[in-house]
């Protein structure tokens, strides 16, 4: 193996992750992408979704990211997200409640393309992503 790549996940509240990873897989705007050490410099926006990485011990870690963007340098990946949570910190109950509320709002807003509907959609996405991550069994 060529070595590990430095991963940093930073939110306005705190620096969530700062450790070495074997591989990082992030939800890019145009689809999920994987990063190993030596990757070309690269900048992209992120979707709401799941960030996966293998820590230096080979354990798979999952992090929920709420949009933002990623800067990839050959030896370092920096994720700037408006908010992010590690899998174990996800509040499943809250996500479920949020999902229900957002779906109700979405139904109310109907198919009109207004701001409320867009926000409700984003809320639905967030809740689903959180639940998906929380529900995933940890591999290995």
């Amino acid at each position, binding site marked *: 193996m060529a070595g590990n790549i430095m991963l940093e996940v930073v939110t306005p509240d705190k*620096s969530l992750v700062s450790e070495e990873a074997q591989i990082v897989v992030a939800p890019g705007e145009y689809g999920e992408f994987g990063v190993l050490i030596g990757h070309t410099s*690269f900048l992209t926006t992120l979707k709401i979704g799941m960030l996966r990485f293998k820590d230096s011990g080979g354990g798979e870690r999952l992090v929920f990211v709420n949009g933002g963007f990623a800067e990839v340098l050959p030896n370092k990946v920096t994720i700037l997200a408006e908010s992010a949570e590690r899998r174990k910190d996800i509040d499943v109950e809250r996500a479920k409640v949020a999902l229900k509320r957002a779906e109700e709002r979405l139904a109310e807003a109907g198919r009109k393309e207004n701001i409320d509907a867009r926000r409700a959609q984003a809320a639905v996405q967030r809740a689903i992503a959180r639940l998906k991550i929380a529900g995933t069994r940890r591999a290995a």
Partner: protein
Amino acid sequence: MPTLKEVELKIKAVKKTQKITKAMNMVAASKLNRAQEKMQAFRPYANKFAEVLGSLAERAGGDEENAPALLVPRAEVKTVDVVLMTSDRGLCGSFNSNLLVKCERFLKEKADEGIEARLICMGKKGRDYFRRRKANIVGEYLGVVGARFGFNVAINAGRILIDDFLEGQADEVHMVFSEFISMARQAPTIQQLLPITSVEKADKEALEKEDTGYIAEHICEPSVEELMAEMLPKQVYVQIYKGLLETSTSEHAARMAAMDNATTNCKEMVENLTLAYNKARQAAITADLMDIVGGAEALKG
């Protein structure tokens, strides 16, 4: 000469006040601590953000015609939005009045130029002040400054500002906040939020920090322009959040200093009053003695 009883009561009252101010001082100190930690935690995000945005702006620059709307200054400025950040609560010395004076002067300047101003008040003190003066307040956020708040507050406020700006309801947006310089110094500051001006500056700072002088030539996905469009509103949120953090920290620092002063003053007052109390007591004793001596003399006579 005040009577003994009066002075005694006064001493008790001042001592109670002193207890309160001391407690408030300690509460402010712990809140200040937390606010400073929050500022510290935000720094990596802000720095990285400025760095990335700066390098993007450099690459997108030169294309003046297609520059994003958030960057272009309006030829004619008719209305400005002013975001005023103050605390919700008082008892923090001249903290709020400094901010209000700064804001009022700014509004006056704009009014003299014939520019209409709309206020967005973050914090009760500013809102109350300008409501009494019948200013045009279009938004208010209470319970934010000095309390626990998240990034989403900045996003919500920022989104409204940006929408109003793009719709032409406001041609410029400024922010009045208190910059936290040190424990003893908090300076009221005005910063322009929209159109965004600080991109280049942020870039230079970021470059100076990185002594290698290496700017990554990123592959951008989607295009540079789309990335810029995504990031510019966030730049506004980041600035608002920074302003809120600085103002909160300043508030607690100002309150701490004010309460420290108050406690010292109480101490001084108690000392003076105790002196007066002892004097009055002594005077009473002397008067009693004179009476007794006088009475004894009379009996002898």
